[in-house]
């Protein structure tokens, strides 16, 4: 194993989970292939990586792969699939009530229903904890655009989420 590959495994592979999550939120089930393709491309382009934030760098490649390989063919918004590991959280709680599960499902559907540019901005900010500057670098949008997308994403999400959960508000 050469030095380059060792560096790649140290710097980039720890962000595999983030790459996978973003790819899935962007592309649904197809996201898995996109994530795989993106990591391989990242490895090929690793010569060109000259320091900086490896996570943002990898996520930018994931995003580019998504839009170049899927963007032209996929027209539907991905919905979170039922079943498969089921709902979000790290530690699935067996005590989780049906109401909790339903609330989570509705939130995830509301996220999935957001237009691509809002959904990706929201995922990067709230799930990947990326700064505005990093989001700007990943999405190639100016910071002002990132801020307004984020505001719009939150407003839309709130609207759709509360419409769904109104009847079960405390």
């Amino acid at each position, binding site marked *: 194993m050469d030095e380059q590959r060792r560096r790649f495994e140290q710097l980039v592979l720890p962000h595999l989970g983030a790459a996978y999550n973003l790819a899935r939120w962007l592309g649904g089930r197809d996201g898995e292939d996109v994530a795989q393709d993106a*990591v*391989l491309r990242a490895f090929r382009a690793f010569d*060109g990586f000259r320091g*900086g934030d490896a996570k943002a760098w990898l996520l930018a490649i994931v995003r580019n792969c998504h839009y170049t390989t899927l963007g032209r063919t996929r027209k539907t918004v991905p919905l979170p699939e039922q079943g498969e590991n089921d709902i979000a959280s790290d530690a699935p709680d067996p005590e989780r009530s049906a109401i909790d599960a339903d609330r989570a499902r509705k939130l995830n559907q509301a996220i999935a229903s957001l237009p691509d540019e809002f959904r990706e901005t929201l995922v990067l900010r709230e799930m990947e904890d990326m*700064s505005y500057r990093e989001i700007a670098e990943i999405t190639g949008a100016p910071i002002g655009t990132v801020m307004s997308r984020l505001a719009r994403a939150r407003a839309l999400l709130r609207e759709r989420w509360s419409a769904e959960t109104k009847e079960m508000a405390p």
Partner: protein
Amino acid sequence: MTCERALEVQAYADGELDAVSALAVEQHLETCAECRVLYDGIVEMRTALKRDARYYRPAAAFAQRIRSDIAREDIHREDGATRARATFGSRSFWTGAVGGVAATALAASLALFVMLPSAQDQLANDIASAHVRSLLGTHLIDIASSNHHVVKPWFAGRTDFSPPVGDYGEQGFPLVGGRLDYIGGKRSAVLVYRHGAHVVNVFVWKDDGSLSAGAKDVSGYHIVSWKEGGLFFCAVSDMEAGELRDLSGLIQKNASG
């Protein structure tokens, strides 16, 4: 009706403000009910997302597949690298120095040396793609102005270096504006010039010594790069290579003079 400070409040909720601005927003939140609702809403939504939003995690088999992909690729790459080294002597990757108008004035300040071809090639490809992206998309300029007194301060605070910004309209290269871009994992200041119907992107970033100056063509685009005053410059356009060198000469003369 949205309070004009809404984006500031959001930036506060996202931890993007410095202490002074954060304090100002906190004071604003005490008096603006609308922003208070906005802020509480963001925090509430964040809690809900942390609790309920799905975080897709790859199966162990996925990570395994990636590792074997990389191992396979690594072997191919080493083969390729051996071949490239074997033919390196007969190929000229970056031919010619910067040349052109101010070449002699520059000779002293420019470091020209041969570099690993792969990194240089990658850079040239990145630059060409960024150039194409800027022409296709809506992101050619962030700040539109032909006035270098407007464009130069715009970069302050957005980059940790100050690119030399000049307008060369009289010489046929009017300044159109500037933007930020991201090349090879680095934030780059970009100066945008026009020459007739051609657009020229000049990428500027801090020179870390990993790249060397030179000239190269990628898919019909000419790329000229040089170093000056601790910065690395890379100009790209589809106009004549000679004209591109003229512009790079003007920029260099401006930077050194």
